């Protein structure tokens, strides 16, 4: 079963919501601007802190639950309004959000990522933020994460999905 099913997941994980419009490369700076705001929030709200993540998993602090919970509520209201009011992109394109299809990877992979999250105290976004904040030892963690992603790609067809 695996091969065909795995290929379907493929189309679900790369190049979704691909815009049909062509723009010069510098247009991508708008995403950098959003990233800058995200990076500032990451540091200022201590979301990149290993200590905050440990407190979350030990139920010693509400902080991270509050951050993620509020973000989901605000995100959900936004997506609802975008769909309801048929809001377009700034270039006039219809906004499309691909559905996520279930596969067992979300459980197995999810558990493995959970292990890594508790060990490193960081999900992928905060890893990049640590480099910006000048904490270069985290480069090791990023390289290892790239190796992990590569290893997943290598063994993908053999893993249960």
């Amino acid at each position, binding site marked *: 079963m695996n091969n065909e099913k795995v290929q379907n997941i*493929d189309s679900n*994980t790369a190049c979704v919501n*691909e815009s049909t419009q062509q723009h010069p490369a510098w*247009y991508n700076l*708008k*995403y*950098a601007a959003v*990233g*800058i705001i*995200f*990076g*500032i*929030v*990451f*540091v*200022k*709200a201590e979301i990149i802190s*290993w*200590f905050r993540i440990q407190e979350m*998993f030990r139920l*010693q602090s*509400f*902080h*991270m639950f509050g951050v*993620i*919970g*509020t*973000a*989901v509520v605000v*995100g959900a209201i936004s*997506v609802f309004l975008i769909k309801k009011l048929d809001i377009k*992109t700034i270039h006039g394109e219809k*906004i499309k959000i691909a559905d996520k299809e279930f596969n067992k*990877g*979300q*459980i197995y*992979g*999810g*558990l493995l*990522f*959970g*292990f*890594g999250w508790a*060990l490193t105290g960081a*999900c992928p*976004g905060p*890893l990049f*933020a*640590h480099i910006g904040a000048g904490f270069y030892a985290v480069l*090791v963690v990023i*390289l*290892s*994460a790239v190796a*992990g*992603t*590569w290893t*997943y*790609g*290598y063994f*993908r067809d053999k893993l249960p999905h």
Partner: protein
Amino acid sequence: MMEQIQQPWPWYVAGILIGLIVPALLILGNKTFGISSNLRHVCAACFPADIKFFKYDWKKEIWNFFFAGGILGGAFIANYFLMTGAPIEVSPGLQSELAGYGLSDYSYMLPKELFSFESLLTVRGFVIMVVGGFLVGFGTRYAGGCTSGHAIMGLSNLQWPSLVATISFMVGGFFMANIILPWILSL
């Protein structure tokens, strides 16, 4: 004003701003919020090795590199211009637990005793940085997303597979932090 910015920001301010990234990326160019895909794009760009999973036109996903680059820049700005330099406040319960493992440096958001090039030569430092990083990269791709792609973007779009993934993240994290990590830290 500046004084307030320099204090750690409360959860609701952070939550609202992060939540607004979802519509911002959609409206700016039909992009769904996600970060871990960058790790895949790096593989596709640098070491595709003829693996099907990495054979796609990564240049179409270049916006995600700009987004990640922005995170780097934002973290730089925040860390060098918007901080008081005070140590990180940590709950007393965690402090006393960490003290038992000889961890007491709260000058940065990561314990410097664990996250440094020298600590790579210790068992616990190696496990936390190298094995932990590997699990982050392997697990996020296997799950098809991380905290941003599943927990925030997926749940915002009411996708039940993302709820499954988010619950799995939390179960894995609780298990590691409470059952395995104490043992690793005592190595």
